[in-house]
C-alpha cells in the first residue's frame, strides 16, 4: 500500500514538474553580483553594466578591433575645424514602451552620463553646447578640437553612455532610476524583477538590429531568446552544479580551484575569457607616512614580486594568469615593458637599503585586509610576510569590502581613520586606455584613492588627449608608464583571465571585455 502511494506521489510530482517546461526559449545567466538597480549611470558596478547592455543601446560602440562604430547613430560628420560634430540617428529606433527614440532623448542621456563619468566630464569640459537640432540630429560643439569625442561616446565600460527617455535622464545621476527603460534588444519585465534574486527580460520585438554582423559591442544585435533570466545565485558551487545539471546556461566567473568540477562533464565547459582580463593592484596612499616618502615607495616596489600572488590565487591554472607590469595591460595597443624591472623583480636587500636611506623609523604600515572577497583575501596573506621580510613593520586590519571601500576615501592620518595600503582590481578596458586608467592621472588631491601627484603625468595626459597620431599616443603612453612606476603610483600584481562557465549547447558567444548576449543561440 505504502509503496503504491509513494510511487503515485513521485509520478504526480514528476508530471507536474514536467508540465512546467514550455517551448519558450530561455537563457539563464548567473552574473557575479546582484542586479539591484538597472541604472548604469548611477553606479559604475560591473554587474549592473553587464545587465544594462541587454536592455539599453548606445549611439556608438567598440568593435572587436577596438575601433568606434556607429550603433544607434546612422553616422557622424565632423566640421573641418574639428569643433562641430553632427550625429544623425538611424531610422526605426524605439523605446520599450513603443515611443520613438529622438535626438532630445540622446542629448538628455549624454548630459546625465557626462555629469558623472570620468571621460564624460573631460568631454563636457571641452564642450560648448550639445543640442538636438531636430528629432533625428544632435550637434555637439567643442571649444577646442579633441580627437576622442566618438571614443568617449562609444565607451564600452562604466559608465557606459546608454540612451534612455529624456524624462528619465532628467533625474540627477545620484538618484538611481527605479523602473528603467531602454531601447536595446531585450525589454525589462519590471513585475518579475526581485532585487537580490532575479531579473527577467524578454525579447523586444520592435528592435531593429544593424545589418552588419555582430562584432563585440558593435554590429547587429540579434536576440535569439524569448526570455533572459539573470539569476543571483550567491554560492558559486551551487551555480556550477546548476550549470552542469542544465538549470542555468552561463556563469560569469568560475574560480580556479573549482575548474575541476568540469572534468569529464559533457553538458558544460569553461573558456578562458582573454578579452575580459583584469588585474590586481596594490594601492599606495601617497599622503600618509611612511609612503609620503618616494624612497619608501620604491622600497615597497622592490619588496614585491607577482608570481607568489598569482600562484596562490590561480594554482596550476597557468593559462589563466600572466605576470605583467605594463601600466596599460599586456597585449594591448599601449602595452610596454619600459621601466618594469623594479616591479617584476624582488630584492628585499635593496628594499631594506632604501628604507635605511629614507630613515624609515618602523612606523607600522596599515594594511586594510579585505576578508569577504576570496582573491583579495589570498593576496593579503601573501603580502604581509613579503613586506616584513623587506623590513616593513606591518599592521593588518581585517574588514569586509564595504568597510574598506568607505575607509579608502579618507585622506586623514592612519590614527584618525586613514590608511596606507589596500588591494583592488580593474578590468582590461578601463586600464588599457590612458584616459580612463586611474593610476596615470597624477591629479594629486583630485586623483583616485592614493592621490599620487605628478605635474608631468597631468601634462602627458593632456597631450595624449590632443595627440593627432597613434604613434605619438604610443610614445606618450610609454612615458606615462615610466613616470608612473618611478612615482610608484601603485604596484601591479599581475593580470588574470577569468574562466567563464558555459552550457555546451550555446554558440555565438562573443569574447569581449563585457559579456554580451545578443548573437548567442542554442544548438540542439
Amino acid at each position, binding site marked *: 500500500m505504502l509503496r503504491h502511494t509513494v510511487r503515485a506521489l513521485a509520478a504526480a*510530482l514528476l508530471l507536474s514538474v514536467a508540465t512546467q517546461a514550455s517551448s519558450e526559449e530561455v537563457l539563464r545567466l548567473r552574473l557575479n553580483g546582484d542586479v539591484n*538597480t538597472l541604472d548604469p549611470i548611477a553606479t559604475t558596478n560591473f554587474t549592473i553594466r553587464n545587465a544594462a547592455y541587454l536592455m539599453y543601446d548606445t549611439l556608438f560602440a567598440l568593435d572587436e578591433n577596438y575601433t568606434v562604430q556607429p550603433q544607434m547613430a546612422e553616422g557622424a560628420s565632423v566640421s573641418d575645424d574639428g569643433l562641430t560634430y553632427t550625429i544623425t540617428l538611424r531610422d526605426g529606433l524605439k523605446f520599450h514602451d513603443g515611443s520613438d527614440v529622438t535626438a532630445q532623448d540622446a542629448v538628455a542621456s549624454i548630459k546625465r552620463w557626462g555629469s558623472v563619468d570620468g571621460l564624460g566630464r573631460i568631454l563636457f569640459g571641452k564642450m560648448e553646447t550639445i543640442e538636438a537640432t531636430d528629432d533625428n540630429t544632435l550637434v555637439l560643439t567643442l571649444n577646442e578640437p579633441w580627437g576622442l569625442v566618438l571614443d568617449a561616446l562609444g565607451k564600452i565600460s562604466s559608465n557606459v553612455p546608454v540612451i534612455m527617455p529624456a524624462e528619465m535622464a532628467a533625474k540627477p545621476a*545620484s538618484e538611481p532610476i*527605479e523602473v528603467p527603460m531602454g531601447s536595446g534588444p531585450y525589454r525589462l519585465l519590471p513585475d518579475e524583477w526581485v*532585487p537580490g534574486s532575479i531579473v527577467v527580460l524578454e525579447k523586444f520585438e520592435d528592435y531593429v538590429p544593424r545589418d552588419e554582423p555582430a562584432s563585440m559591442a558593435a554590429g547587429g544585435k540579434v536576440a535569439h531568446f524569448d526570455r533572459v533570466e539573470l539569476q543571483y545565485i550567491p554560492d558559486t*558551487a551551487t551555480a556550477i552544479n546548476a550549470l552542469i545539471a542544465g538549470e542555468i546556461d552561463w556563469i560569469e566567473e568560475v574560480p580556479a580551484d573549482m575548474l575541476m568540477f568540469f572534468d569529464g562533464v559533457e553538458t558544460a565547459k569553461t573558456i578562458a575569457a582573454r578579452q575580459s582580463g583584469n588585474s590586481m593592484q596594490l594601492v599606495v596612499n601617497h599622503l600618509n607616512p611612511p609612503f609620503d616618502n618616494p624612497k619608501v615607495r620604491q622600497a615597497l616596489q622592490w619588496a614585491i614580486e607577482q608570481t607568489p600572488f598569482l600562484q596562490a590565487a590561480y594554482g596550476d591554472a597557468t593559462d589563466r594568469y600572466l605576470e605583467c607590469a605594463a601600466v596599460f595591460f599586456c597585449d594591448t595597443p599601449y602595452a610596454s615593458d619600459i621601466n618594469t624591472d623594479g616591479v617584476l623583480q624582488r630584492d628585499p636587500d635593496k628594499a631594506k637599503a632604501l628604507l635605511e636611506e629614507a630613515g624609515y623609523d618602523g612606523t607600522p604600515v596599515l594594511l586594510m585586509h579585505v576578508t569577504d572577497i576570496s582573491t583579495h583575501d589570498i593576496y593579503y596573506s601573501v603580502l604581509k610576510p613579503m613586506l616584513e621580510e623587506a623590513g616593513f613593520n606591518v599592521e593588518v586590519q581585517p574588514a569586509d569590502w564595504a568597510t574598506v*571601500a568607505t575607509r579608502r576615501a579618507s585622506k586623514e592620518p592612519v590614527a584618525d581613520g586613514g590608511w596606507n595600503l589596500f588591494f583592488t582590481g580593474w578590468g582590461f578596458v578601463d586600464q588599457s586606455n590612458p584616459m580612463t586608467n586611474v593610476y596615470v592621472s597624477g591629479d594629486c588631491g583630485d586623483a583616485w584613492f592614493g592621490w599620487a601627484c605628478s605635474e608631468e603625468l597631468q601634462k602627458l595626459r593632456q597631450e595624449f588627449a590632443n595627440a593627432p597620431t597613434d604613434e605619438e599616443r604610443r610614445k606618450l603612453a610609454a612615458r606615462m608608464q615610466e613616470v608612473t612606476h618611478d612615482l610608484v603610483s601603485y604596484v601591479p600584481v599581475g593580470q588574470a583571465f577569468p574562466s567563464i562557465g558555459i552550457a555546451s549547447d550555446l554558440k555565438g558567444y562573443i569574447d569581449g571585455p563585457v559579456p554580451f548576449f545578443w548573437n548567442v543561440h542554442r544548438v540542439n
Partner: protein
Amino acid sequence: MLRYCATRLIAGIPTLLLVSIFIYSLIHLTPGDPAVLLAGDNATPSQVNEIRARLNLDLPLWQQFSIWFSDALRLDLGASIYSGKPVTWLIAQRVEPTLVLSLTTLVLTVLISIPLGAVAAWKANSIVDRLCMAFAVIGFSVPVFVIAYMLVYLFAVEWRIFPVQGYKPLSNGLLTTLHSVTLPAISLALVFSALIARVTRASVLDALGENYIRTARAKGLSAPRILFLHALKSVGVPVVTVVGIGFATLIGGVVVTESVFNIPGIGRLTVDAITQRDYPVIQGVILFFSASLILINLLVDLSYALIDPRVKG
C-alpha cells in the same frame, strides 16, 4: 482569551521599540558607507556627498532615527537604498519562500524526531536507543552545508531527481513548490530533528516513570498505545516549546541553506542588506524577525492551553 492575546501583543510594542533603537545604533556605528558603495569606484567625493544628502545620511543619528521611526509608525519602512523598492515589498517577496521552507522543514522534523525520541525513551539504554541518539548527535554536529552539498551531489547532480537550486513559487502548483524545497528542507530537518528528538526522549523518559503509565501497563494496554497515546500527550509542552523556538530560528536564520540552495528568502535578504549596508532593509527585516518571534511565542503559549488542561485560564 482575546484580552490575553491583546495584552500580550501590546506588551510586544516596547520590545519592538527597544530592538529598533538598538539595531539602528548598531548598524550606523558599523563602518561602511552605503553612499560610497552605491556611487561606485569612479565617483568623486562631491557625488558621494550628494548621494549621502539625498539619503539623509548626513543628518545626526537621532534625527535619522526619528525620521525612520515616525515613518515606521505609519507602517512605512522606507525603501532600499539600492533598488529603491519599498522595504515592505521586499520583505513580502521573501516571506513565501522562507515560510514554505520553514513549514516543510517543521513537518519533516516532527515526523522524524518525535517517533525517534519516543522509541529511544521506550527502549532506553538499549541498542535502539543508542542508534537513535547516535543519529541525533551526527545530525547536530555535521554542518548543515555539508549535508546540503551531499544531498545536491546525489539527488540533483548524479540522479537528477530534484533541482540543484532555486525556488518555484506556489503559483506554479503545490507539488512543484514542494519539489523545489525538498532538498533544503531535508538538510535543515536533519539538524532540527536531532535537537527535538533529544528533548522528546528526555521528556518521555520522565513520563514513563509516572504512576499513570504504570497503571496503564497494569491494565494491559499495548506498548505503542501507552507510548504514543499516554506518554507523548503529557510531554507536549516542552516539545512544543522547542518546536516553536526552532520555527522562529528557521524564519530568521536559514541563511546558509538559503544560499546553498539559492532560495530567495528572508535570511538572504538580511545578509545581502548587511554586506551592502542597506540600512532601511536591515532595520525592516530585524523588525520583522522581532515581530515574528513575539507572535510565535504567543502561539506557543496559547497552544499550552490546548495540550495541557492544567494551563487553562
